């Protein structure tokens, strides 16, 4: 069966297996088409520079290619790819010291921990405003919100990537949502989303 014929039917995990067995680049190209845009989008969101996001995406795709044999299948392939992406971007920001909040754990301790922000508030903000607010909030908050709402990762999966306990991740999400809402309210005075 030709790789192009099966591009829409076959799962990521099967493509990995087929690529490793055959070393046929066509299988990896399908994975590239599925994920390069997403990896680029995340890199751009976190690094805030188109050229750095291009370089990052290229490096991440090479890293994925060179490490495909290490993918054990214990997690979803998408989770594995996103963990490489987030870790790459976090390391990059740390090295550049562009945004210290990436590695400061309690950067939001002054927020009211009692206030619960509804998921619908974040999910229904119009796209242009969503992008603006995500660009305003610290990278640590943005990362965790992208993981939860864009990649739909579980608390356990996020904890695995960031090497934190599930309760710590829950608290981080709660605080990131509060930060998002606070920034939104400060930017757009009216209540409509």
């Amino acid at each position, binding site marked *: 069966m030709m790789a192009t014929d099966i591009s829409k039917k076959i799962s990521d995990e099967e493509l990995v297996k087929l690529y490793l067995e055959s070393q046929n*680049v066509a299988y*990896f190209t399908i994975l*590239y088409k599925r994920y*390069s*845009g*997403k990896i*680029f*989008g995340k890199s*751009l*969101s976190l690094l805030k520079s*188109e050229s750095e*996001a*291009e370089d990052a*995406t*290229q490096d991440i*795709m*090479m890293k994925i*290619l060179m490490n495909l044999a290490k993918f054990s299948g214990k997690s979803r392939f998408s989770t594995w790819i996103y963990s490489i992406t987030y870790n790459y971007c976090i390391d990059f920001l740390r090295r550049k010291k562009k945004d210290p909040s990436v590695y400061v754990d309690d950067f939001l301790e002054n927020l009211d921990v009692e206030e619960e922000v509804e998921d619908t508030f*974040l*999910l*229904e*903000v*119009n*796209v242009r405003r*969503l*992008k603006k607010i*995500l660009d305003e909030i610290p990278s640590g908050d943005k990362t965790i*919100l*992208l993981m939860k*709402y*864009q990649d739909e990762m579980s608390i356990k999966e996020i904890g695995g990537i960031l090497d934190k306990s599930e309760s710590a991740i829950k608290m981080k999400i709660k605080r990131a949502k509060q930060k998002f809402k606070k920034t939104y309210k400060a930017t757009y005075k009216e209540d409509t989303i």
Partner: protein
Amino acid sequence: MNNFKELEKMQTEQYQNSLNNIKNNLDSNMKTISVFTEIVDVYFSKVINYVVSLSGGSEEKLIDKKD
């Protein structure tokens, strides 16, 4: 409704040129790796045999030793 997903889709469409650049660079890297792998596959064993014969050994002896 999930506008995080919409944002992701919008970025993918908006930056198609960047994605094409990345794909071209990646293709070129993959070709380089492929050529390098072929060179290693074809010539490395010959180089090993040459080194073995230079040091006075032979392939047969190596096989004998393994047995």
